[in-house]
């Protein structure tokens, strides 16, 4: 059934509205970051005086650059660990039949729903006692607590989609289970791995609660936490322009990752493997 001209028009209209609604805040942020501190609150969409001084500010103060480094490092390490560990766990869950399999999945999903705010207090005390406060591992570990279950959950769904016969065919063809995984399953699961990677990375990248509570200096403070502590130019000016500039800067790595990997998130990679 081909859409009629009217339907096409309707859909295009709907898409346009969605795009405008989601892009307005982004543009607003960009414009804000290009305003001078004095005119930041003037309410105009287009800056009267274009300036890059906000960007200059945040990069010349050490706080933001170290925060950026921490953010990238911590989010990447957490995500990589989570995806690697979760892929073997998810593979086992998808393939093996063992008692308590459903329970594990249920618990995994339950853990991701646990209110993080309730963990922060105890963790703060514990981290101070064992010396993890304000360190990279001090953030990576709590991040893993939600990154791992989430990865296991999404990945096991992806693994389940891959026909088991493919692996058995590989084994009959002479592959060890590890070879079968590396040469057959992993390539086919790439879209799943990438999707999981992006979801988990974004979660870690955007975390605020743990970051603000478990760090205190530029040793481990990530961008969301650092943003909250930007000093204004004087006691009486809000650092709105700086924050906007920083927000634009931290959005860029995320956009790069998504655009880079988007092409790999193609569905139907297993097409043609099996029929029926």
């Amino acid at each position, binding site marked *: 059934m081909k859409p009629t001209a009217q339907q096409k028009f309707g859909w295009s209209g709907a898409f346009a509205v969605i795009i405008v609604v989601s892009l307005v805040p982004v543009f607003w942020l960009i414009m804000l970051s290009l305003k001078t501190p004095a005119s930041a609150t003037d309410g105009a969409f287009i800056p009267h005086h274009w300036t890059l001084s906000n960007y200059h500010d945040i990069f010349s103060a050490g706080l933001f650059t170290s925060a950026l480094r921490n953010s990238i490092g911590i989010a990447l390490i957490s995500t990589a660990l989570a995806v690697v560990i979760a892929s073997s766990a998810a593979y086992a869950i998808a393939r093996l039949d063992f008692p308590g399999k459903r329970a594990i999945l249920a618990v995994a999903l339950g853990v991701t729903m646990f209110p993080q705010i309730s963990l922060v207090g105890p963790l703060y005390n514990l981290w101070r006692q064992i010396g993890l406060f304000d360190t990279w591992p001090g953030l990576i570990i709590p991040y893993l607590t939600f990154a791992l279950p989430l990865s296991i959950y999404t990945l096991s769904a992806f693994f389940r989609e891959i026909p088991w*016969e*493919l692996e058995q065919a590989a*084994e*009959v*063809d002479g592959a*060890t289970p590890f070879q079968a995984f590396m040469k*057959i399953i992993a390539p086919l699961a790439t879209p799943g791995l990438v999707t999981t990677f992006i979801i988990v990375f974004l979660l870690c990248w955007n975390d605020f609660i743990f970051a603000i509570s478990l760090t205190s200096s530029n040793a481990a403070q990530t961008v969301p936490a650092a943003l909250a502590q930007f000093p204004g130019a004087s006691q009486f000016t809000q650092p709105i322009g700086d924050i906007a500039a920083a927000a634009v800067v931290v959005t860029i790595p995320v956009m790069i990752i998504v655009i880079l990997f988007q092409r790999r998130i193609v569905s139907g990679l*297993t097409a*043609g493997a*099996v029929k029926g």
Partner: protein
Amino acid sequence: MADIALEHITKKYGDGFEAVKDLNLDISDGEFMILVGPSGCGKSTALRMVAGLEDITGGELKIGGEVMNDRAPKDRDIAMVFQNYALYPHMTVRENMGFALKLAGAPKQEINDKVTEAARILDLQQHLDRKPANLSGGQRQRVAMGRAIVRNPKAFLMDEPLSNLDAKLRVQMRTEIARIQQRFETTTIYVTHDQTEALTLGDRIAVMRAGVLQQVGAPGELYAHPDNLFVAGFIGSPSMNFLPGEIDGDTLKLPLGDVQMPGSVRQRLSSGPGGGRNGVIVGMRPEDFEDAQLVPDRGRGITFTTNIDVLESMGSEFYVYFNVGTEKVASRELEELANDAGAAELPTQEGSQVTARLEAASRVRQGQDAELWFNAEHIHLFDPENGKTLLGGDGHVDEAPSSPPQGLAGSDDT
């Protein structure tokens, strides 16, 4: 190449379900063995145990004389064709076929030569660099075959390799598989639930039911001398008619009339296991009926008049259906068979409808009375209690089926 021996093989699944029970099967080197049976009877389970994809609960599996129970699939040197082909979707046809050789560390040149050769045999040369997604069903099936033959393994294992193809392609690929098997002379176990495939392809057929092996034998033997009701009803298409009968001396009393049992039947009955019974189940193959007008010598059979309910013309032959005024045969075995085989195939389910195959020259008309004849030489007698045949071997198997070709090759999948 090697022989395969299954000795008392048993499979119990984790949930306690016994899918294969004490299976004994000797498959000699180069033989084409068919595993056939209704859905869920344990054929795939048996095959997968040979492949090593399923643990063997009990018994011993030998390939080429070596016990294989605890070997990983990769160490058994067998090739398997899966029902859904299981082609590697991210690899080209060439890579799919060469995967096993590459894993085995064969030199590039050798892989290339073997893949090219296999592609030539299977007529896949033009498709070597395409991905499975871009192939037709028949081509995918051939790639799956190609993956098996490039390796020259000890055995081919095939699990319903044709069931995903349409009827025409299935017949075509069936011939292809027979040709390939003959060419390579590789021991083959072929699973199917299609009795036509079984009869046309196999050197020998093993019929299974509910995890239990029923009978093993050459297609002609299973057709002419089924061991029990199940095999009798399963092999042959359309399937055998079953009627209640009574033995009185040399006479067999049938709902169609009384018939003098020919000497050959009497002799086999006396050498059979259950002699001395009176009530029996009589099996009559549709192809052993004929329009009485077309039979010059009606001596060794029974002639009767009946009203033809339905007449189906196949061009070369007629199928006629008629009812026999009798209660349907009551047998637990037969009921199970009806359930197993799908009630539609078994006339005994709905009263005693009988199917007969007549020559196209016949003048019978639907709805009219007709005089039919049944060849009593080919009668089958079964014990109603346990479903076993009451006839012993007659010593000269070759003579027995007068018209096996029709039953064996006549009905293609439609």
